[in-house]
């Protein structure tokens, strides 16, 4: 990135067509969005084909870009930056265009790939929905937003993409807005993220103040300026980093702004998978990775010579609290949602501890298996559990009935848990490893605990979903009398364990059967659970395969470091031991990896046994523990209520602003400020009447009549509004005098 001009020029000359035209990648879906809106309805497939085509086109270009970048990265570190003036002011010029480097290429490929699969999946999943066309329009715009953010050459374009995603998440989460719960969830998501965006706006303003530019990369870009230490005050940089980080916390659902994520599950499942795997929530992490020098230098807290990075702290906390929450969820999608939050925690922690590469790699691998898991959940709801996501009431024993879903789920779960030789292992383990290696021992341990918990709650979910006996929606058409007994058993279990949350959950598991009536599924209900049609299973299989193999791009155990080669130029900071630099990555050793492997194995087995006991048929001591043991019960309740953060946000803050404060302000407006006017009005009337009586009537003739009449009219109009409280007017009088004096003092000082 710091190669001198000449090299840069030469390099540019050599850049291939795809590298030069990568800006097409977001443009295509953006155009497609408008096409779908205007002509989608007329299309035979309701516009979905436009969406898919555009995504495929983007995917092709992205692939080409990636290919060319790979050989490009061998002989140059220069990013390919092109931009045209988007808007100007005085000397400042802000561009819109592309900033292509390893990180961008990786994200482009990832996003366009996942989006394509998700859209194919959706053609079946939301078939016959009453807003089919809009669904695809929003999906497409969503991808466009993420893509344009990914290759943003400066902060302004970054914000553009960022906010467009916010909007689309609003539209998609609230897709079935006939139900108030959904529209509320959409509102909440947008609003929470927007609160974070305050940080983004202010932070950007700060960056402009510090660096005088908003360009991210390249010569004289923010990253290089920070890396070369060309800025005035570390303090300002810290504030800027904090402000931006707030935005990341909001977007990536980090603690304490994670509460919107589970509610966002109100949206259709494909949306959830897109949101959680490669777009939206990843944006926050991506911002940290993109402006890494800013965060690495800015949030580097130095206590008694002991350097540590604030990003890691938030990441660490998030890992644990989110994982803990995942245990008490009955809604399969919410389990996955919290697991996403905690995985994002891993990425943040990785970035915090200086393990840029593993963290980014985790973005990469996580995308595949998490997307796959969500799609599995969707597939189950679609043809397995009669549109319910409640593992306790409507699932179980699906392993036989939906083999493809089952196996892809298993593979992805193993990847998520970080079982060796699945993709998750290579990225997650390296994060934990480098945490220890970079003297963040505590966080290393947190990572280990997180791994353990992940394994445990995923096993629980797997058991509930695929093993045991079928319940509720999943049990239809299993022959009659057995059916009943199981239902009964299931209900019993349900009440035992979760008698609490039935009434604690404000919004219950979202049911995906809105919009498309069941008839449109082609098979009359109740139906026997079976695997979904190809539009759903094919993406599952592809993702499942990748969930295994994507990890081998950067498999430390085998000294395979392709990924690293392609991306290291994007890191923005050199390797080294000084504070301003990134420590060298550790060399892999099975000994170091052993603890996590053991813990994962432990987690899986333990959780399996417990689940079997708790959720299995035969009664035993573990069931209903949460009711009998007060302490456990309290803990359970605490978790079920998401640490009561929601209560704080909605009950206290929002209510306070929305009602008392706003109304108070309005009252002041109506009575105090208006009062002055009305008081003046009275004065007008008095004078008017006086003039009318004395001057007008006696001296002048009708000509002047009008004015007097008007003046009287004025009074007449204002009459009813005024309160007639002497002392109130007195207060206004004195207050006005004081304020006026104040203004003059201020101005004249």
């Amino acid at each position: 990135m710091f190669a001198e001009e000449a090299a840069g020029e030469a390099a540019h000359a050599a850049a291939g067509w795809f590298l030069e035209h990568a800006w097409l990648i977001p443009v295509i879906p953006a155009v497609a969005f408008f096409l779908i809106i205007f002509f989608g309805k007329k299309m035979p497939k309701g516009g979905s084909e436009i969406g898919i085509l555009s995504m495929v086109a983007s995917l092709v270009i992205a692939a080409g870009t990636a290919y060319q970048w790979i050989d490009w990265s061998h002989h140059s570190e220069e990013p390919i930056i092109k931009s045209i003036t988007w808007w100007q002011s005085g000397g400042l010029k802000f561009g819109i265009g592309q900033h292509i480097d390893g990180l961008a290429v990786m994200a482009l490929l990832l996003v366009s790939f996942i989006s394509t699969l998700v859209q194919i999946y959706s053609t079946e999943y939301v078939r016959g929905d009453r807003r089919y066309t809009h669904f695809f329009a929003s999906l497409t715009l969503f991808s466009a937003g993420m893509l344009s953010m990914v290759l943003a050459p400066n902060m302004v374009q970054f914000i553009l993409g960022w906010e467009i995603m916010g909007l689309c998440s609003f539209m998609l989460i609230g897709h079935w807005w006939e139900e108030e719960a959904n529209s509320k969830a959409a509102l909440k998501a947008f609003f929470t993220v927007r609160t974070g965006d305050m940080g983004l706006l202010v932070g950007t303003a700060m960056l402009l103040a510090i660096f005088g530019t908003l360009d991210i990369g390249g010569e004289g870009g923010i990253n290089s300026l920070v890396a070369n230490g060309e800025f005035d005050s570390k303090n300002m940089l810290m504030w800027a980093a904090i402000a931006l980080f707030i935005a990341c916390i909001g977007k990536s659902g980090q603690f304490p702004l994670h509460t919107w994520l589970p509610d966002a599950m109100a949206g259709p499942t494909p949306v959830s998978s897109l949101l959680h795997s490669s777009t939206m929530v990843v944006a926050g992490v991506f911002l940290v990775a993109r402006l890494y020098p800013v965060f690495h230098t800015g949030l580097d807290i130095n206590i008694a010579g002991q350097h540590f990075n604030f990003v890691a702290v938030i990441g660490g906390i998030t890992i644990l609290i989110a994982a803990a929450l995942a245990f008490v969820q009955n809604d399969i999608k919410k389990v996955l949602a919290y697991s996403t939050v905690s995985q994002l925690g891993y990425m943040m922690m990785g970035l915090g501890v200086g393990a840029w590469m593993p963290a980014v790699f985790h973005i990469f691998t996580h995308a595949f298996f998490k997307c796959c898991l969500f799609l599995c959940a969707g597939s189950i709801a679609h043809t397995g559990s009669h549109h319910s996501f409640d593992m306790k009431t409507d699932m179980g024993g699906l392993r036989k009935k939906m083999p493809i879903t089952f196996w892809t789920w298993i593979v992805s779960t193993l990847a998520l848990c970080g079982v060796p030789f699945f993709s998750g292992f290579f990225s997650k383990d390296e994060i934990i490893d480098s945490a220890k290696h970079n003297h963040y021992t505590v966080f290393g341990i947190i990572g280990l605990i997180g791994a353990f918990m992940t394994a445990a709650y995923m096993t629980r979910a797997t058991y509930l979903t695929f093993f045991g006996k079928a319940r509720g929606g999943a049990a239809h058409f299993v022959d009659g009398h057995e059916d009943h007994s199981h239902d009964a058993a299931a209900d019993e279990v349900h009440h035992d364990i979760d008698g609490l949350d039935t009434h604690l959950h404000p919004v219950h598991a979202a049911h995906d059967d809105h919009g498309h009536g069941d008839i449109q599924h082609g098979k009359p209900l109740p139906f026997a659970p079976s695997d979904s049609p190809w539009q759903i299973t094919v993406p599952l299989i592809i993702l499942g395969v990748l969930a295994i193999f994507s990890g081998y791009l950067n498999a430390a155990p085998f000294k395979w470091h392709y990924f690293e080669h392609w991306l290291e130029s994007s890191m923005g900071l050199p390797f080294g031991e000084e504070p301003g630099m990134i420590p060298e990555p550790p060399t892999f050793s099975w000994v170091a990896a052993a603890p996590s492997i053991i813990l994962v194995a432990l987690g899986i087995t333990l959780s399996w046994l417990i689940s079997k006991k708790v959720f299995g048929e035969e009664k035993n001591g573990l069931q209903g523990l949460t009711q009998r043991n007060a302490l456990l019960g309290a803990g359970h309740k605490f978790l079920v209520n998401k640490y009561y953060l929601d209560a704080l946000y909605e009950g206290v803050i929002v209510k306070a602003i929305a009602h008392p404060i706003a109304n108070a302000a309005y009252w002041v407006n109506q009575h105090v400020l208006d009062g002055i006017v009305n008081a003046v009005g009275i004065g007008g009337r008095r004078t008017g009447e006086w003039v009318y009586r004395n001057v007008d009537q006696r001296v002048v003739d009708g000509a002047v009549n009008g004015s007097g009449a008007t003046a009287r009219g004025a009074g007449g109009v204002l009459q009813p509004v005024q309160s007639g409280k002497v002392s109130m007017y007195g207060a206004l009088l004195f207050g006005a005098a004081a304020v006026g004096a104040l203004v003059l003092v201020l101005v004249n000082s």
Partner: protein
Amino acid sequence: MVLASDIQVAQNIGFGIIAVMMILAGVGVIASRNVVHAALSLVVVMAGAAAQYVLLKAEFVAVTQVLVYIGAVMVLFLFGVMLTRAQLGKDADLNNKNAAIAAPVALLLFGVLAYVLIDGFADEKISATTGAGATPQDTAVISDLIFKPYLLPFWALSFVLLAAVIGAIVLARKD
């Protein structure tokens, strides 16, 4: 070097004591739930004011203050209280609901005034020749002023008083 006469320890102490007294009494006036108490604390304030006038070497005004205000006005007040049979004990609804607005207004006002004063008269002294420590204001001078340059206002004032007396009588007449 600073002359003792510039600092005037005695006067300052006196000022301080009286001022505190006045302020407390003033609070009494505006806060007391009892009309009579309020009126009485107003007496204290006025007495204090008179004392301040003495400090400011305005004996004549001070005397007038004591005679007219404390002597006449306050008595009037107490009469008013009696006649309107405002109960002499505690009175629950003595205040209206405006305290919420009045308090900030008053504070703001005081803030502005204080700022301006401190800003304007940073540390201007009351010069020893004219202020405390100098010879008392010559009453003759005052009378000259009243009856030479300020004669017109004096007349106006006398008419006002006359009008007031008549008006008061007219208003308060029984029938």
